[in-house]
């Protein structure tokens, strides 16, 4: 960890209510540059609501968000993106019919002037796309290859590379491995590791403890809208994490009958 021990983003006592439903009941999390912070929780624990609050989709009902030490009020996701908080959704920000390079620069197209016209600079886009993909360990057939021909893991990697290229300081990954096979998962985890080493803060949402243990520096478990604390790597075993996610006791019994295979 290359932290200078100033968190890049601090979520303080975040509460979010939807009508009478309390989705988040006071969650506090700090994220440091260059760390992979895993956010674990079962379905309905409030993970999605929490990251949507972090990325500007929801406004918190109560609590404050400090970004680089300053209080932020994101009006919409665009605000968060321009501040440097990028989210890679599970399904997703890629368009299968378009080429990798057109996807990579979607919404941020480079232009060059030809006479009075401002044209899409395809040469530059293609060059950068190939370079960035190679850095992430993906060898494209060509920049005009359609995203539809890439595997799920490769698409995640393209989305991550794109966020990094456009200056993300905090990268939120929403269950990037949940629909992937073993090898593709390994590729995505390797990508996360590369990104973290560039000093970018990664918030990795998952409900798979093994994926979290593979790359995580710190682990925060959410359960029923509350955090059960943040643990450092090495201070917690996978079994303990699993228990925390499931909310304690029942899981112990269950796991006993399943022989510790869950």
């Amino acid at each position, binding site marked *: 960890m290359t932290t200078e021990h100033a968190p890049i983003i601090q979520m303080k006592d975040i509460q979010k209510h939807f009508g009478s439903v309390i989705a988040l009941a006071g969650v506090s999390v700090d994220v440091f540059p260059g760390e992979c912070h895993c956010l674990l929780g079962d379905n309905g624990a409030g993970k999605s609501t929490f990251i949507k609050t972090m990325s500007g989709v929801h406004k918190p009902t109560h609590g404050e968000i400090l970004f680089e030490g300053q209080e932020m009020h994101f009006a919409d996701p665009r605000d968060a993106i321009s501040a440097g908080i990028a989210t890679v959704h599970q399904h997703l920000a890629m368009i299968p*019919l378009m080429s990798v390079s057109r996807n990579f620069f979607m919404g941020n197209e480079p232009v060059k002037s030809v006479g009075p016209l401002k044209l899409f600079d395809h040469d530059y886009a293609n060059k950068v796309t190939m370079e960035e993909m190679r850095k992430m360990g993906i060898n494209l057939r060509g920049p005009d290859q359609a995203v539809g021909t890439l595997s799920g893991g490769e698409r995640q990697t393209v989305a991550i590379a794109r966020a990094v290229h456009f200056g993300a300081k905090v990268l939120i990954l929403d269950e990037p491995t949940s629909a992937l096979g073993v090898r593709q998962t390994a590729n995505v985890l390797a990508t996360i590791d590369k990104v973290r080493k560039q000093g970018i803060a990664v918030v990795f949402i998952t409900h798979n403890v093994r994926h979290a243990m593979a790359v995580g520096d710190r682990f925060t478990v959410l359960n029923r809208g509350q955090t059960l604390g943040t643990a450092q790597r090495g201070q917690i075993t996978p079994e303990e994490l699993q228990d925390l996610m499931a909310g304690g006791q029942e899981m112990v019994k269950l796991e006993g009958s399943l022989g510790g295979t869950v």
Partner: protein
Amino acid sequence: MGEAAQPVPATDERVKEISGLRKALIRPELGGMVGTVAVFTFFLLFAFDSGMFNSQGMMNWSIVSAQFMIIAVGACLLMIAGEFDLSVGSMIGFAGMMIAIFSVTYGWPVWMAIMVTFVLCTAIGGLNGYIVIRTGLPSFIVTLAFLFILRGFTIFLPQLIERKTIIGGIKDVAEGDWLAPVFGGKILGGLFTWMGDNGLIATFTRGTREGQPVVDGIPMLIIWAIALIIFGHVLLTKTKFGNWIFASGGDAEAARNSGVPVNKVKILMFMFTAFCATVFAVCQVMEFGSAGADRGLLKEFEAIIAVVIGGALLTGGYGSVLGAALGALIFGVVQQGLFFAGVESSLFRVFLGVILLGAVILNTYIRRIITGER
């Protein structure tokens, strides 16, 4: 790209090398190119002596094709952006009627009538788009409503004002107007006179126009078609906005996540489609010298068919303006060619149905190749 110095990247053994044929197949224009070659081969073989390929015959099918091209460019960009416009035909009738009412009935200068009509029709196109975006309804339904609304006004207004459904006399009021020739004029007259004088093209052999070439210039309609095709092609493939058009039609939600102003793109494309329909209408009104309540009937479907033959996907996100232009060319050549070849004209519809079905099936297959779906 300066890749020579790099070590050759290991190829992924799971990605099959794709053959040149498959690579060519995923170009959206391919169907249009093959179709164009096939159609010309057919008519050169079977209708060469019919007069289809002398200067007059060529001008005949060129004009018809150019008409299709003008509306196909708008329909193409809109379809790639993920929407339809079924009100194109009614818009053509409506725009023509508005020009006639403004210029003939109200006596406005023709240039002003044309400009006001452009503003009005483009605004109606924008309204189409706005309703589609706001309500989230399929554009199919919204523009179907406008198909009837606009056609209804096109029949009602001239009856109310002039007690007839055709308003003529536009040629007279357009005399000496500066904007009218931009739509109704002809250019390169000198070239055609020269070609006639030198025996390259046929000339009239008797009558008051003896010695003048049968074809005396290129109608502005064709110039508009070419200009719109070039504009549409450059916009789609060479600009930032073109990327947004593809993205909006490919997956509106993903595009929004990446910061593409999807709503703006779609509304602008509805406006552009209406603009193209108006260009068609003005050229037609200037050529005929009249506006009729039944003008432009079924044109929306002809535009969509040309676009689909040109390789665009009905579901949006994929297509080509050049392809759509070739689709329009096929459409025009076959329609007029069957006439030249003396084939019963009702069979043209049979041909149209068959080629449409074939094109859609081919496009679906191509889509699977691109996206790797099964």
